[in-house]
């Protein structure tokens, strides 16, 4: 008999191997120290930005390896970190107003690999250094806020409907609305029921009180929204930090993980994450002009907008951002120009209605206020100071009286509208957050971790390769080749998934070497056994592969079971280990059985009476 695979099978295996090799390649090209520019609100990147960057660098006599432009950012690669850091400073000074300038390690994947969308794995924090925060969202506070909002809405509603009430109070998880007599109570109940959805109303006849409870669904919604909004807010803020490739994701029901690779200054990171921001709506003071000595008339104040232009606004605030319930961007139905749609709560709506009624035709401004804490080094001591940033982000003309829902037009682009809506929505954190976990890894430690991980992998691999070679001779060569292919495949799959490589992930690779070779050992031992039993070489090969398969399959399944369980506890690095191990187990099933067989067939399959060198 002969052992051979049909041509299609060989081709299929070779295709998979080629795929594995190509897509694992990007991991071997390292990274370029680089600087990335991404546009701030309103700004854009285009060819002219790139030319500007090139000019700035040329003026400073810095040589960039390459200036790349894509739809979202400009990436400038350098040969060394020295010029990278110098360039960051220069670019920040030259373009810092309109662009966020950040240091980045950009993969140095050659163009032909990028053309087929081959990218390297992403390095975890433990390998590149950086900070990791886990934030706990205070859900109770979020629910409390929601209750207060509802209480406020009820008050306004009753006032609007001229229903007299004695009091609206919060009591633990309910809102108690008290009335003089039963009739008003019943009347109020109808109004509330009609106007505000999602509330459970219960009458306490004896006390002339309506007991209001927020429905389960609403509470769940509030909690979900609190996390989602906080994530949006945090993402905005992290973008302000200018961190390349941050990770911000929900973990569990009420936790948020923020990972900032490359950031070492945790103090600054926390300042930004914990900052509070809010909005104010004010009328533009159109009756006065700003005096020559920059003095504002009584009752007004000078503000400046994003481009630094000064605007005179009335001191009286119409509405603050706390009263914005929701904001979304879209197009104005009449003019088709970009617009932001805003919903206010009851109090805000009433104030807005009163103000706008009297000021049709006048301009109203939106002021964005951010409280930042800054830590500076002063005489060796760390000094924390609070800084308040106020800027006018939008001025629009009041066309009509409006209250709860209204829109802001006069925005230049849909991008701007989207950003404004985002700021309105995400200006402030929806619920307070508490840092419950914090990990900082220094960059030197990251580098050390990579080196140690790689070294232990290579040594482990070499030891196995030598033993296998000595023990199984010709078949050992094949097993080692199979191992290399297996590693390439794992790497390719991880790269395609854009998985994060962590130190435990590297450990997963190392361990997979030992486990993957097991399949080869099973097959080879079986072949040896068959040979000892006096079976012909070809039959031994056939039986070896055939019999060993069931065992290999069973043993892989059990390993897989345990690896999958690892996901369950997997937070961060351990997940990396679980992913690598799982993929390794699956690929080794393929490589050990089919690749080995293909190679064995090529070497021995066609010959009769051959002696197996095993």
């Amino acid at each position, binding site marked *: 008999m002969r052992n051979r695979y049909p041509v299609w099978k060989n081709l299929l295996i070779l295709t998979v191997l080629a795929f594995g090799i190509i897509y694992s390649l990007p991991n071997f090209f390292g990274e370029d120290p680089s600087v990335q520019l991404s546009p701030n609100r309103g700004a854009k990147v285009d060819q002219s930005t790139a030319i500007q960057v090139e000019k700035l660098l040329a003026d400073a006599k810095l040589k960039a390896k390459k200036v790349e432009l894509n739809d979202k950012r400009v990436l400038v690669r350098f040969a060394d970190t020295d010029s990278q850091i110098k360039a960051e400073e220069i670019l920040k000074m030259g373009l810092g107003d309109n662009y966020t300038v950040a240091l980045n390690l950009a993969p140095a994947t050659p163009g032909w690999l990028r053309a087929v969308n081959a990218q390297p794995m992403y390095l975890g924090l433990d390998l590149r250094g950086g900070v990791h925060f*886990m934030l*706990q969202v205070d859900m109770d506070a979020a629910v409390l806020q929601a209750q207060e909002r509802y209480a406020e809405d009820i008050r306004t509603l009753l006032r609007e409907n001229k229903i007299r009430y004695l009091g609206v109070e919060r009591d633990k998880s309910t809102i108690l609305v008290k009335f003089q007599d039963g009739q008003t109570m019943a009347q109020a109940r109808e109004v509330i029921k009609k106007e505000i959805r999602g509330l459970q109303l219960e009458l306490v006849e004896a006390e002339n009180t309506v007991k209001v409870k927020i429905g389960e669904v609403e509470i769940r919604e509030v909690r979900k929204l609190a996390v989602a909004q906080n994530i949006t807010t945090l993402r905005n803020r992290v973008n302000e930090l200018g961190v390349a490739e941050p990770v911000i994701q929900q973990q*569990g029901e009420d936790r948020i993980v923020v990972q900032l690779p490359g950031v070492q200054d*945790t103090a600054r990171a*926390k300042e930004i994450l914990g900052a509070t921001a809010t909005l104010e709506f004010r009328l533009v003071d159109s009756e006065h002009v700003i005096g020559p000595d920059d003095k504002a008339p009584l009752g007004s104040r000078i503000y400046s907008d994003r481009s630094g232009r000064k605007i005179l606004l009335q001191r009286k605030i119409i509405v603050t951002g706390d009263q914005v319930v929701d904001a979304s961007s879209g197009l104005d139905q009449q003019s088709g120009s970009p617009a932001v749609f805003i919903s206010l709560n009851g109090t805000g709506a009433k104030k807005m209605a009163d103000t706008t009624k009297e000021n049709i035709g006048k301009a109203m401004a939106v002021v964005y206020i951010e409280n930042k804490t800054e830590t500076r080094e002063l005489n060796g001591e760390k000094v924390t100071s609070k800084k308040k940033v106020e800027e006018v982000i939008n001025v629009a003309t009041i066309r009509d009286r409006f209250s709860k829902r209204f829109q802001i037009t006069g925005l230049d682009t849909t991008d701007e509208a989207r950003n404004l809506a985002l700021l309105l929505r995400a200006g402030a954190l929806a619920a307070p957050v508490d*840092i*419950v*976990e*914090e*990990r*900082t*890894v*220094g960059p*030197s*430690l990251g580098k*050390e*971790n990579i080196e*140690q*991980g790689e*070294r*232990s992998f290579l*040594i*482990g691999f070499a*030891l*196995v390769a030598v*033993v296998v070679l000595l*023990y199984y001779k010709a078949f050992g060569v094949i097993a080692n080749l199979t191992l290399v292919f297996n590693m390439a495949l794992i790497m390719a799959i991880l790269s395609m998934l854009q998985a994060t490589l962590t*130190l*435990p992930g590297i*450990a997963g690779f*190392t*361990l997979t*070497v*030992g*486990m993957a*070779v*097991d399949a080869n*050992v*099973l097959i080879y*031992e079986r072949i*040896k056994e068959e040979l000892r*039993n006096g079976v012909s070489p070809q*039959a031994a090969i*056939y039986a070896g592969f*055939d019999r060993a398969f069931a*065992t290999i399959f*069973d*043993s892989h*399944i*059990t*390993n897989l*079971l*345990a*690896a999958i*369980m*690892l996901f369950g*506890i997997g937070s961060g*690095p*351990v997940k990396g280990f*679980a992913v690598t191990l799982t993929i390794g187990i699956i690929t080794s099933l393929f490589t050990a059985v089919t690749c080995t067989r293909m190679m064995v067939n090529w070497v021995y399959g066609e010959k009769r009476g051959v002696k197996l060198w095993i």
Partner: protein
Amino acid sequence: MNQPAPRLYKIDFLGKRHIAVWASVILSIAAIVSLAAQGLNFAIDFTGGTVVEVEFVSPADVVQIRQNLETNGFNSPMVQLFGTTRDVLIRLAPQENLKGEELKNRVMGILNHDSANRAELHRIEFVGPQVGEDLVEDSGLALLYASIGILIYVALRFEYRFSLGAILATLHDVIMILGFFSVLQLEFDLSVLAAVLTIMGYSLNDTIVVFDRIRENFRKLRRGEVVEVMNISINETLNRTLMTSFLTFLTVLAMALFGGEIIHNFAIALLIGIVVGTYSSIYVASALALKLGVSRADLLVPEKEGAADNRP
């Protein structure tokens, strides 16, 4: 081949099973006693708290550092050297009202008390107590689910007595690793837990290979005592078991020696697991299945695998 010789195997493993069972029982009891008496040295992953890793300019005085921390209000801090005499690892219990930046500044202030020997911060990790508690719960569940999954799979593929043997052998390995970490009070962190779960899969893998062969031999060798068939099977798979364990051991050894501090305990747990797992799949699993009364009839039931006669 259908007429087995009086003895087809070299080593009478199961003949000595009583010694093995006793050895396992005694070691397991020792492990459990240690776990009950002094427990595991849980890392902050599980307990919450703060870990600070610093490097001093010149060799550090661990006792002095501990004293300084204690006088400054940190209760029973753990201070130890690792790697070199200049690298120090400090573990602090969860602090009320003190965390993040403030905590870091306080600790670094205390460490830099001696201005001649300044410390450079390498790594600081803070884990809130709630996070730790959640993790303990999740880990317990993960171990439980893994055990149940294994139980079901082996029961489906083989027979419930094998399944029990396999799961008990696997738990035996888990207890051994935990016991080892408890006796030596090595730090038990999330990565060690990952190692424990990995070993569950690994040890089971070994056991399955032996069981597979036992089943095959029950079908192939028409005669022979149960013990004899098992002995033959273990002997036949011995080469493979030892070879694989040896190779995996080598890779993990490389990890333990060259992989650095962070995965050191992880590698140690794997090393123990591989050794114990190899032993348990040879001895414990089969011995238990035997004790539970596995018989030929249990495995001869259909599953149309005429593989034994189907050779080319």
